[in-house]
């Protein structure tokens, strides 16, 4: 037997090596790259590598992708649908983008995907609530997509900054006539409250001040439990039925219920053993709306609701 043939590992070992490399890679890998990592007894010519991969492809174990930076085709373990989803989510995790931006930033990696495919994918992600549409910075901008629901603060920031500058100018002018700036600010806040139909009550608790559990009040609407059940079931289903729903979404779904009434209704459901809350553990810290929606109890910030099955 020729020496080289004796040293070559069987095809199954080569496939194993390629599978382990493909498994470990979040991206499809070019044939030339795959060939270059097959050393020693595993080494094969490019045609042999392609033949092995094509056999895997016909068995549905790998998928072929068009070349990216080089000329050789790429292969990956993930299907184009899964890969497209990963690419879109990764792009949107970096920053909010328009559909066109998404297509331009990641489309080169998945050349077989058409504009219509990307549009369909993003619409599907929106339907799954994995991605949220939001208006652009101006009225004429295209819709942007991100992994989080739009935060009104992002749109109000420049308006508030402008308002703040004007306020400082007026406070400066009034200061010359003996009016302290604190008085000017208090008056401005009061007028702002009136303008939006909500005046902050004196001593209103910040959502973070732990005043202990809310005192029992007969404030929860009579139909709170049934409405809560329906909202929970709907959101849970949309989020994959993991029995894990954020208070942010539940408060939004029952937006007409005042905070104190919502908290009381939630407490009643917990006391009845129907639902439970769990801590606001989140990757990368809590978003402001999460912090605001959470309930502080016994030293823990509680954000997620689960139905008690037991």
């Amino acid at each position, binding site marked *: 037997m020729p020496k080289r043939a*004796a*040293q070559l590992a069987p095809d*199954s*070992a080569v496939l*194993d*090596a390629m*599978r*382990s*490399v493909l*498994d*470990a890679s*979040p991206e499809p890998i070019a044939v030339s790259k795959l060939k270059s*990592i097959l*050393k*020693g*007894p*595993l080494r094969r010519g490019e045609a042999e590598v392609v033949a092995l991969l094509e056999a895997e492809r016909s068995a549905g174990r790998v998928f072929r992708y068009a070349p990216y930076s080089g000329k050789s085709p790429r292969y990956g*373990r*993930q299907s184009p649908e*899964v890969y497209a*989803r*990963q690419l879109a*989510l*990764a792009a949107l*995790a970096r920053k909010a983008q328009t559909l066109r931006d998404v297509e331009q930033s990641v489309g080169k990696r998945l050349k077989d995907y058409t504009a219509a495919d990307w549009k369909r994918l993003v619409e599907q992600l929106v339907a799954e609530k*994995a991605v949220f549409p939001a208006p652009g910075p101006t009225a004429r901008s295209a819709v942007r997509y991100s992994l989080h629901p739009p935060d009104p603060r992002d749109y109000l920031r420049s308006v508030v900054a402008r308002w703040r500058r004007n306020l400082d100018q007026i406070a400066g002018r009034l200061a010359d006539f003996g009016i302290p700036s604190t008085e000017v600010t208090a008056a401005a806040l009061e007028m702002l409250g009136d303008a939006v139909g909500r005046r902050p009550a004196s001593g209103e608790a910040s959502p*973070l*001040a*732990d*005043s*202990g*559990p809310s005192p029992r009040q007969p404030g929860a609407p009579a139909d709170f439990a049934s409405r809560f059940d329906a909202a929970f079931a709907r959101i849970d289903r949309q989020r*994959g*039925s*993991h*029995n*894990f729903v954020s208070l942010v979404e539940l408060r939004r779904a029952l937006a007409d219920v005042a905070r104190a009434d919502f908290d009381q209704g939630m*407490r009643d459901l*917990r*006391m009845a053993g129907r639902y*439970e*809350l*769990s*801590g606001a*553990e*989140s*990757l990368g810290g809590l978003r402001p709306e999460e912090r605001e929606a959470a309930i502080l*109890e*016994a*030293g*823990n910030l509680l954000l*997620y609701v*689960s139905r*008690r*099955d*037991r």
Partner: protein
Amino acid sequence: MSTETSSRAPHEAHDLDAFFQAVVRTNPFLANAVTDPSGEEIDVETIHRSEFEELIGYAEQAHRQRGHLGQVVWGEPGIGKSHLLARLYRWAAQGDRAVCVVLHNLQPPPEYLPRYILKCVIQRLVRGQAEAFHGTPLYWLVTRAVREGLRQSRRDAPISAREARDAYRKVVNSLVSGHPGAGPDARTIYHVLFHFFLGAYRGQYLDGNETTADLAVRWLAGDELDHDEARELELRCGEDREHPVALPGTQAVESVLVALAELAWLGGQPFVLAFDQVDNLQDAQIASLAQFLHPLIDHARNLFVVVSGVQSRLLHFLEHGVILRAAWERIAQDERGIRVGRIRKEQARQLLDARLEKFVEPYVTVPGVKARLHEDGLFPLGQAWFEQRTGEAVDFRPRDVINWARDRWREIQRRIGQLGGPAWLAAWPDPCPEAPHAVVPPTEDELARRIDEQAARRLGQQLQRRQREPESLPADAANLAGLVETLLRQCLDPAWGYRLRQIERPAPVRAGRLRVYDLVLTSQADQEGTTLRTGVTFLVTPNRTSAAAALRRMVDDEPPPQRVVLVCDARRPLVLGPKGQEYLDLLQARGPERFQVIHLTFPQYAELDALQAVVGDARTGDLEVDLAGGHVRRISEAEAVASHHRNDRYRGNALLSLLLG
């Protein structure tokens, strides 16, 4: 001054003074996390009972239906997930109900993860080789198969080795034929398992020599064997003697686990693989774990896989495509998973009762203690304290309840120190200090001090766990390399004052065979900007061929880095033939400035693993400091790393100290 140990008062100490001393010297509420799933632990069975029964139900179902199941156990940090897995482990061990392996803090590079999982499983099944192979769980798994074969042949002992082999073969045929998931290497694997059995039997009853069993364990765990060693196990060797013999690939790794599950089925036991705190893995590691578990669950019979972690983090991995949907559907066959929830007030009380009972038990007949216990079952904590502490809250995290009791106990220790024991007892119950409700943020220094305390305590617990269970950290080059790289990356910021500036890891090559150095480090040698390059190779193998090949690659490397560090594990010392010794001599001739060998001891290895485990705990939100009024603040990953730096814990380890310069 009180010392915080968990040792109990001696049983013979029945007088009041001994009671006061015990209160001052011990605190039964110090441990708030599982440090050892197999260790002695106070367990309140009524807490999370239904979740536990659900777990057992799945395990039993996997066995009854000879099927495969995956389930996820999730909940917030400090809720009791690890306690639940520890309870599952103890249930399995009592009366040999199941073969259960609990794995945690896996640190190898992603491409090596399946092989490392296998190594951990095998090491658990031979109890870390701390005792003879005879009588280990792995021995009994094969023994039962032999017995089953004899039963089918209507034979009784005593029998010859040949008869035992024939009987075993018959059983193996029935296991392999008609099982498409067995894998192409199944018969070889069963064959090596029989060699293990025979070697262990001979070692115990004939000549005391366990060499063959040891070789079988090494091969089954994915290690490489020389041709001479492989021939002992009747394994096929290629023509190239330089090419060691090992499990051929990931599919073979999977097939070993499939075979173990089959053998467990013969013995009437489900095979349970539990992965605790998987959310402390890096994205690439968790992706690799999911990709490995997917076909394993598909192919194995009689297997129940449990994956545990913080729910929000696991869902994040799923939603961001780190865990692919298809793999998730195997790992969590019920999308709702097993949710470990908060406990009610009466259960919180039971949690405290269980620890108090154990503490006061030697003193229940001491008159002063007896009277107080009679009037208040929560003595010395006190029912009034409990009522005030729990307030109107609906439910609780077990960790919070334990921490509150720990703090109350410290207050009691302080009062006994102030008043003396008899006066404290006469005045008991002290009025409980009003718990402040508002969050009073600590100063930066105070916060850092508390983080340091908490990180040091957790580090101690993690070390303790590894010392109790050395088999949880088998000698393994890839895991060690991954661990060291992860820790060194935490030291790259020049602000921490180390000289290390860059870490390179050569592209992964299968099984790392062709890599000269696992890591190449660039450090700043002086103020003028001169750099020092260090090549680090981790070599943990008793295999002469592999060792010689690795050393030859280092000798042949031209030009070599200015410094080369060879890291070995003292538990698996290098075994060198003449060629290997020649290469080592050549390297050592470069002088100690340019070539160094480090024989890492187990405590040093455990220290590295524990350092990273603390950072992993922080990443999953499982490391917390208590603020005023019982408020809890999570310690972030960056804060845990900063605490390690502040306390010079990296340089405290001999290997890291050398590499950091």
